[in-house]
């Protein structure tokens, strides 16, 4: 039986009185999954990710992370989750290493383990030489890298990423994919939104397509795309739904 890490049941989120951002969305992400979440702008991807991260309240449904309810046990859920938003707005008044220390403290990562992981990831993403500088002096890509390292410090069971490849240089993007695979081999699950369909097609073992807050298609990548490219399927699904 598959080990479900993220279980979303009938998630519904409405902004104001009428604008349904997510409508009765149900999906599961299992240990070892790299789950791509694709859809147009405003389809409800970020709202879903934020709801799962416990930073946005939702109206109906339930979200469970490794069996814990996001509504009832938010702290327990956050302890095993990492969330990286699309725009890494970090604490610019901290240096890179101060930020990573902060993240380590928040997630209770032991000092030696922390030092070893910071070293490992900082070298991997070629940012070790800048960790002593204030984040305010970083480029967008560097901020993205430091956010990633901070998120990976506690080896989360569930990693939520909103457009993780935006701003990363090609080498960092390649290494991030490697990290995804390594974490999945250890039993973590990755759920991320993207507009880059090529990446989703090659990287993800599962795909979900969302439109207007509703899940249009989901499942194994091969099953979703069949004999066609993901891009073709995506455009067809959107066109079918419009008719």
């Amino acid at each position, binding site marked *: 039986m598959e080990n479900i890490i993220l279980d979303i049941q009938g998630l519904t989120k409405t902004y*104001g*009185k009428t604008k349904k951002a997510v409508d009765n969305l149900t999906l599961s992400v299992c240990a070892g999954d790299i789950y791509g979440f694709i859809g147009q702008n405003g389809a409800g991807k970020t709202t879903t990710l*934020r709801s799962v*991260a*416990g*930073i*946005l*309240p939702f109206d109906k449904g339930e979200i469970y992370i490794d069996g814990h309810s996001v509504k009832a046990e938010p*702290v*327990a*859920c*956050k*302890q095993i*989750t990492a*969330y990286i*938003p699309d*725009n890494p*707005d*970090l*604490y610019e*008044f*901290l*240096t*890179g*290493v*101060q930020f990573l*220390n*902060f993240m*380590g*403290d*928040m*997630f*209770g990562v*032991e*000092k030696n383990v*922390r*030092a070893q992981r*910071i070293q490992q990831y*900082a070298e991997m993403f070629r940012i*070790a*030489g*800048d*960790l*002593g*500088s*204030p984040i*305010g*002096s970083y480029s967008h890509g560097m901020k993205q890298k430091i956010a990633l390292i901070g998120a990976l410090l506690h080896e989360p069971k569930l990693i939520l990423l909103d457009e993780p490849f935006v701003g990363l240089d090609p080498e960092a993007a390649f290494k991030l994919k490697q990290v995804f695979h390594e974490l999945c081999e250890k039993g973590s699950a990755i759920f991320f939104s993207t507009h880059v369909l090529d990446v989703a097609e090659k990287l993800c073992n599962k795909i979900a397509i969302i439109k207007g807050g509703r899940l249009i298609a989901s499942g194994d990548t091969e099953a979703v795309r069949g004999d066609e490219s993901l891009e073709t399927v995506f455009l067809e699904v959107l066109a079918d739904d419009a008719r």
Partner: protein
Amino acid sequence: MRAKWALLLKIQLMGLTGIGKLRKDADPAVRRRAIGGLTALAIVGLVIVFYTVLIALSYCEQGLGAVLPSFTVAVASLIVFAFSFFQGAALLFSVKDRDFVLSLPVPRRDILVARLLCSYIVNLAFVLLIAVPVTVVYFVFEGFGPAALGTVLLAVIFAPLLPLIVGAALGTLVSALTAGMRHKNLLQSILSVVLFVGALAASFSLSFSAGPSGDIDFSAMYDVLVGSIYPPAVLAQWTLTGGRVWGVFAFAGISLAAAVIFVAVEAAFYDKIVGKLMAHAAARAYRKTDIKSASVMGALIKKEFRRLFSCPGYMLNGISGSILMAIGAVVLLFVDLSAVLPADAASDAFLTGMAAGLLIFMIGISCPAASALSLEGSSRGLLFSMPVSAQKILLAKAAPTFLINGAAGLLITAVFCIKASAGALGWVLCLLTVILYAACFALAGTYFNSKFPKYDWTTETQVAKNSMPVMIVCFSAMVLGFAVMGLGFAIGYYAAAAADVLAAALIAVFLALLKKVKLYV
């Protein structure tokens, strides 16, 4: 077609007041909160008007009603200068939307004009809050005349311009000079504190113009303020009482000319200034000793302190009362209290009541907690996704306010009690007042900030100085502090004791309220 600077100004003002967002927000809870906040602001405004009228009446009682307009212009100008300076480069250059605005097909001059006008309008609103009641008192006591009205209007309208420009120029200079340094934020904060202390020293010299009876000598105060510190204000006075009609026009002309020259010069060097401000210290690798660990609460509090000291505008607006208390403690060491206080009033009970009121006021005007949550801004999602309860996050936000106010308050209280030879009851009540009110205002500020957060700021000063939670706490402290001082005259110890009981009850209430707060983006 509207001028581009006007379009930019409109956008800035909409962002500042939040009116556009409120009009479009369908959520009734948001509207209810906004109405509640506006009511609180109206009360705050009334309190300011009340105290301004009291001071104006004191002037008139001493036969100095005629100089009220120029005195008001001078006082308002000094305050505008201080706040403009503390904002530093953020006022005109280091704003969040800079890159976006720079990418628009708008001349640098228009960007500067829009930013300067936006600050001018905010400061003019503040000046009007003081000037309107003073002008009413002035006309009641000195007689109304259309020429006088025109003169006062002209003086008030141009009052904020010159200090705004001088403050912005000096603040930008400090920011630019320290921009490439590793600890630039700390340096800027220290420089700002030095200037702040200088301004305090000037105000101390004013307060020492008290006459032998102990009454404040407003005439001497006027001479120092208008004669020495802010002479342009005297130009308006020449028109009002000296028969020199050109005075107020000269005042307006000087202000306007300064603005035009400032915009022309800054526009010419805009890109160079921005380049200088964006300079960063050279990249530095981390050392193994940089890896440190702390408890969750410890890490959160450490982060709050770092945030507080990272921005001069936030620090100065946040802990001015604490700095005042620390300086007051040092000054008290060299003051003979028995010579300053009237002999018949210097009983322990009276002094305790008065000291408690003053402490409440000083502690309340220093409340960085009231803007700490808002300052999370666009990075709030990061904090809210941490595996800690909202209550823990909020208590950590309250901690610096409690610790800084507590330390400064205990210091001045200890010095005061020793110098005043306070009895045991006086000591206990004063120390309790410090601890309880440091906690009470820290929790209150945090709670009000969670109810009225403003995350979409463009400069820190917008929330550290002008936001609703800051004003609510500041002016609650003002009202409560003066009430306790007033009661201290009549019931001595009981005034301090009652204030302490009230604080304990409020702490319990705010702790209960904070438990219910949920933090969402």
